[in-house]
């Protein structure tokens, strides 16, 4: 079976984001970009499936500006076989991204789509569920274990109360959580090899998808700041402050 891995280019998770002075968004020029950490986990899982023989081909896909090629090259260096860039400078909303991915799924006919549960920029946590809905496929969200890939697959989901196991009828969309695996670092030889792997570029218009946003961002502002308080000398003083000053215990 083929496995499709949608990935996203975001501001590197280790960079502190800065809100722009004109409140139009966050500063992205001259800021280090990287693959969304949840997408790395999805790539790793798909590559492991290929290594174990459960998957025959791993296809990475992204939606974004031409620089998103770098993110696809990272996926290829980690072990994906080929890549598709859906190139656009439009605002990316989960619904329109899911519509684009639906067309790619129709063209590529993967047996499973594995993707991050959310991207750390918009924090929407929607695209996988939306893609599953548009395809009429089963969805396994916030997954920390994938077990088997035949006519059905069992996945373990991280839910608020603990863990839940569900059986998904295949094909399925799986969105991954942090504890599914530990993504590998691409080795230098694999980074070199990745440069020669095939990458196709298409546009939303080629795929017949309207990218008109449904949501207008009116402004982006700094969150309310929280001031550092005081240091206490010892536990006795801490308990005294909590009892008599903050009155919370």
């Amino acid at each position, binding site marked *: 079976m083929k496995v499709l891995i949608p990935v996203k280019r975001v501001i590197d998770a280790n960079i502190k984001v800065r809100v722009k002075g004109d409140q139009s968004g966050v500063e992205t020029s001259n800021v280090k970009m990287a693959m969304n950490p949840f997408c790395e986990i999805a790539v790793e899982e798909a590559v492991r499936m290929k290594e174990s023989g459960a998957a025959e081909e791993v296809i990475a896909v992204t939606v974004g500006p031409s620089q998103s090629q770098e993110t696809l090259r990272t996926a290829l260096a980690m072990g994906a076989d080929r890549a598709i860039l859906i190139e656009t400078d439009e605002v990316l909303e989960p*619904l329109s991204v899911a519509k684009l991915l639906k067309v790619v799924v129709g063209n590529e006919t993967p047996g499973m789509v594995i993707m991050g549960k959310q991207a750390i920029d918009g924090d929407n946590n*929607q695209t996988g569920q939306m893609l599953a*809905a548009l395809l009429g496929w089963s*969805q396994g969200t916030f997954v920390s274990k994938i077990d088997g890939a035949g006519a059905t697959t069992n996945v373990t989901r991280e839910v608020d109360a603990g863990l839940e196991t569900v*059986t998904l009828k295949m094909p399925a969309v799986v969105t991954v959580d942090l504890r599914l695996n530990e993504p590998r670092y691409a080795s230098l030889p694999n980074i070199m090899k990745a440069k020669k792997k095939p990458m196709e570029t298409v546009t939303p218009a080629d795929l017949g998808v309207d990218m008109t946003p449904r*949501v207008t961002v009116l402004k982006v502002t700094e969150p309310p700041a929280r001031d550092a308080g*005081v240091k206490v000398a010892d536990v*006795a003083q801490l308990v005294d402050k*909590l009892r008599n000053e903050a009155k*919370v215990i």
Partner: protein
Amino acid sequence: MSILVVAEHDKSTLASATYNAVAAAAQLSGDIHLLIAGSGTGSVAEAAAKTPGVTKVLNADAAEYAHDIAENIAPLLVQVAPGYSHVLAAATTFGKNVMPRAAALLDVQQISEISGIESDDTFVRPVYAGNAMATVQSSDSVKLITVRTTAFEAVAAEGGSAEIEAISGTGDAGLSTFVSQDISQSDRPELTTARIVISGGRGMKSGENFPLLESVADKLNAAVGASRAAVDAGYVSNDFQVGQTGKVVAPDLYIAVGISGAIQHLAGMKDSKIIVAINNDEEAPIFQVADYGLVSDLFDALPALDKELG
């Protein structure tokens, strides 16, 4: 137009998060209806009817809704949503799983995890793990929204008297089936609703040291939480995790023990009223948000705290 809140429940009572979602709905214009989907929901529908401000409870009691399978519940939302201006659910793992599926079927761009309501079509939501706040306006005719529970103080569970209307099920989609649940059992308060939370991080060094934390928790009637580092290291299970990708909490008192204060963790607790940090590293970023900081080895401080609380 009315507002529909998708309830989360255990067949006898509504989840506390649903009362937060109703509080958000109360800031919009229109009557509030609650949707209960489940199997054997008669008594929870009656409990839901007592929620203040709710005028109608839609009770979808059918076998296909027994295990909160998104593929089964989403078609129900698609069927009822067109009669409403807004459909809200709490941003729990239930809401996050079900709502986007319904939104896509309705061709609606969902607004995730709102923390503020400016008007019926304009909402505030955290992005970049809460490092920026976006004010967004939706142009969809029905607005599907998930609600950050800590941003809206829960309404009471009693005081209302809504009518209950039974609605029929939409059938089993035949896609996903429930197998099992592995739920942590605890006599302590639930993490997301506890008045006091005490969390341990990588500084705890091992899951075997968590009883030090639990003993203090029991004296304060507090819930126990953990940082992502502690969960990833296997000290405690995933349902303890406080942070951007775990649970978001805002108790009256949050005590962070052996937690450095990664952005990811701060996103899950920085709206707490009082924050206490106990860490042996004076430079740990957690001290920048703490009201009271104690620079100390936690293996000295926790037993001392336990003793001080008697």
